[in-house]
């Protein structure tokens, strides 16, 4: 038997405590950290394995002794009780030895912490912004500079509500993936729009809170092409479980190609802010924007969730003054769950306000043009 196989058997059988088995990602019986895909993740993985072995040794030492005692030093076996209750030597020994073990654990951890924090000289810098409840990505510097998009959960609601069978990547799939080239140092700047979120991709060993009003950073270098999935790790409200992160690491050539496509798409979708839209155009676009941004709280029928999320159907805001309605959509309302949606485009804001003012029972007949939103931003 090879020593590796022997180690596996020992690891798996040791009271089922922990195990050093390496299993493929998405294995339903995965016992360990996912297979590491970056230097940092590899170091974390190795240190975790080392710690498990140390813990296992301590565990066996302590409980081997204790259970030997439990089995042998029993009154039912007429074992007479000893009367010792003190030994300074022994006490000193079992205070000193753990200190040395801890130093042994801390040394490699310290080196990794210093490496994790070194976000200097990146090849590409991407800002990730947490929103309730999606991620926004802006490529700030390096190849792809200027690319910007939102990344929403793409699992259909019907799957979550058990009306359809669940897909392979249930809850771990998004409409727009974060694409990065392999072998390049990617620095991620993190912030949030509303509450604290956390950006976590286990395969890269990166988890960093995204805090509104502050910028934090982290870095990773993907080692080989692939799709790596993670989730928001900080409770951020009711859809916290539904804002995954999907990173696609591609070869540099493919990355250049992707950047080209994005740039073309960006140019094509840039519309003249002064273009006038018809009611039908705005409502059609507005419905899409509503479904992507508003429906989670205000619901498809505009009725909200009584007591928790306000209704729009027949509400004072959505049927009252237009300016107030636009203001609340763009800037949110402090002290409530209503977040600011300034990050949407002029067309999107104009469309969604128009949609809300002319849907369900609301029939104000108001038309909001993108140019009005554009004016307000100045």
């Amino acid at each position, binding site marked *: 038997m090879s020593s590796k196989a022997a180690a596996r058997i020992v690891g798996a059988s040791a009271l089922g405590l922990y195990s050093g088995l390496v299993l493929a990602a998405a294995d339903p019986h995965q016992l360990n950290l996912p297979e590491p895909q970056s230097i940092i993740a590899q170091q974390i993985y190795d240190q975790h394995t080392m710690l498990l072995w140390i813990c296992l040794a301590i565990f066996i030492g302590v409980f081997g002794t204790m259970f030997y005692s439990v089995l042998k030093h029993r009154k039912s076996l007429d*074992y007479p009780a000893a009367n010792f209750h003190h030994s300074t030597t022994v006490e000193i020994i079992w205070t000193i030895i753990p200190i040395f073990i801890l130093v042994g654990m801390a040394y490699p951890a310290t080196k990794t912490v210093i490496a994790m924090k070194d976000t200097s000289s990146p090849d590409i810098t991407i800002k990730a912004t947490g929103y309730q409840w999606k991620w926004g990505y802006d490529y700030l510097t390096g190849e792809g500079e200027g690319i910007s998009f939102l990344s929403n959960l793409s699992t259909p609601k019907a799957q979550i509500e058990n009306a359809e069978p669940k897909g392979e990547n249930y809850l771990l799939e998004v409409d727009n993936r974060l694409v990065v080239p392999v072998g390049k140092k990617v620095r991620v700047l993190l912030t949030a729009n509303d509450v604290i979120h956390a950006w976590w991709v286990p395969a890269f060993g990166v988890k960093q809170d995204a805090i509104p009003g502050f910028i934090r950073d982290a870095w990773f270098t993907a080692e080989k092409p692939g799709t790596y999935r993670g989730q928001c790790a900080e409770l951020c409200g009711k859809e916290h479980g539904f804002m995954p992160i999907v990173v696609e690491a591609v070869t540099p050539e493919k990355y250049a190609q992707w950047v080209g496509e994005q740039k073309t798409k960006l140019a094509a979708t840039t519309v003249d802010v002064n273009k006038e839209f018809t009611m039908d155009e705005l409502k059609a676009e507005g419905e899409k924007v509503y479904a992507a941004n508003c429906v989670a709280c205000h619901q498809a029928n505009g009725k909200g969730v009584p007591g*928790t999320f306000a209704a729009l159907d027949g509400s004072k805001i959505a049927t009252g003054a237009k300016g107030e309605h636009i203001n609340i959509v763009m800037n949110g309302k402090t002290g409530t769950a209503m977040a600011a949606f300034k990050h949407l485009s002029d067309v999107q804001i104009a469309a969604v306000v128009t949609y809300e003012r002319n849907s369900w029972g609301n029939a104000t007949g108001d038309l909001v043009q993108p140019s009005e939103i554009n004016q307000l931003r100045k």
Partner: protein
Amino acid sequence: MAAVDHDIGHDDHEHHPTGLSRWLNATNHKDIGTMYLWFSFIMFLSGGVMALTIRAELFQPGLQIVQPEFFNQLTTMHGLVMVFGAIMPAFVGFANWQVPLMVGAPDMAFARMNNWSFWLLPPAALLLMSSFFVPGGAPAGGWTIYPPLSVQMGMGMDMAIFALHIMGASSIMGSINIITTILNLRAPGMTLMKMPLFVWTWLITAYLLVMVMPVLAGAVTMLLTDRNFGTNFFNAAGGGDPVMFQHIFWFFGHPEVYIMILPAFGIVSEIIPTFARKPLFGYSSMVYATASIAILSCIVWAHHMFTAGMPVTGQLFFMYATMMIAVPTGVKVFNWTATMWRGSMTFETPMLFAIGFIFLFTIGGLSGVICAIVPIDIQVQDTYYVIAHFHYVLVSGALFSIFGGVYYWLPKWTGHMYDETLGKWHFWLSMFFFNLAFFVQHFLGLAGMPRRIPDYALQFADFNMISSIGAFGFGFTQLLFLYVVLKCIRGGVKAPAKPWEGAKTLEWTLPSPAPYHSFTTPPIVK
């Protein structure tokens, strides 16, 4: 000589108020202790129902039973209720019953304040629980109530904040009472270093409580004014800092963890020597270890915030300080093992729970060391791994010691022996189901399942199902505990003054049940 007559009258243990006023106007440490324990048991069942609803939702992927916003209310309230309603009051109940008995005092030092500190709790609990029924529902931002999320909540959050204020005031009064009782009312001859370890651990815990509860009160008050009066303590847009809340909260929150475990160490340190029929090994090192754990617990708070973003030096400092706690904690485990070594052991229910405690708490301690390593913590923070870790220290730690303590002292409290067979069933079922529920959560966390989510990816389905089965088994097992306790109160074999052969502390010198006024003449400790 009316005053003298009065004193003699008080020696009569049957002379006490009856009916409702015995409880409402209670000044007797035993009556108040009993109320604390029942209160905590009711809260334990309430928090348990919430936990089981959570586990029922997580039984399968997809949303079946509750909607996400209500799910978040349940996780939040489960945490608040268990920490502030179940575990903490249970230990105060133990202190009320046992501290006067173990130091040879007639009662607690401040009898009326004792009444007040208990009777603050039911209104606070009512306020907390009724937040479920107000518009917006109960707080849903996690028991850690981090802003800005907690600023978004409805008025349920304000109710929870007031409830925390009241519970904090109750804890501070209870602690002052315990400190004063221990320092002033010890029997002649009982020097500090002759006190039973349970008394020592509570003395240190009480100091921790007095120190950190006001910090929590400050944090939640700032949150309250941010929510209602336009202040910006935690709002970056107004010059505040949301992370500052986390620092203040955890400056309370980490010592709080030890507030919930130090008295457990004390109970276990009483049970082990009794059933090993051998004195506790390394008594003085146990005292020093408890004190050093308490001091270290005040300088490790930011290990809850490794992913919040901190300078390298900050992360390293908090990592080293956290790892240091393993040393005194290790000393305790080694000392308990050495106490058992070459003893003459029997395994009644209290002993089973004490050994179960050491075994499972050590697993929680080892996973704690793993969590202390910053790079590993980056992976497991806010995942099911952390859930597993703190349930190993709080359920199989704090709660198991409470069960052990109840079985250990029930004969003294009720005058009857409990049903040993059923007690053992309670232990083994708890042990089995607890591990079924929580061990697999280590795997879920390592594989990448975040905590506080109502639905999860398909790869986590099997372990979640196992965990839910374990949780339900564990929950229903506790009804057996209720039955055993009720049965013991109503009758059973008459308990002698000292039902445990190896017991040494003062409470066993009194008859069972203990007389209403405990020691009316102080015993002499040599």
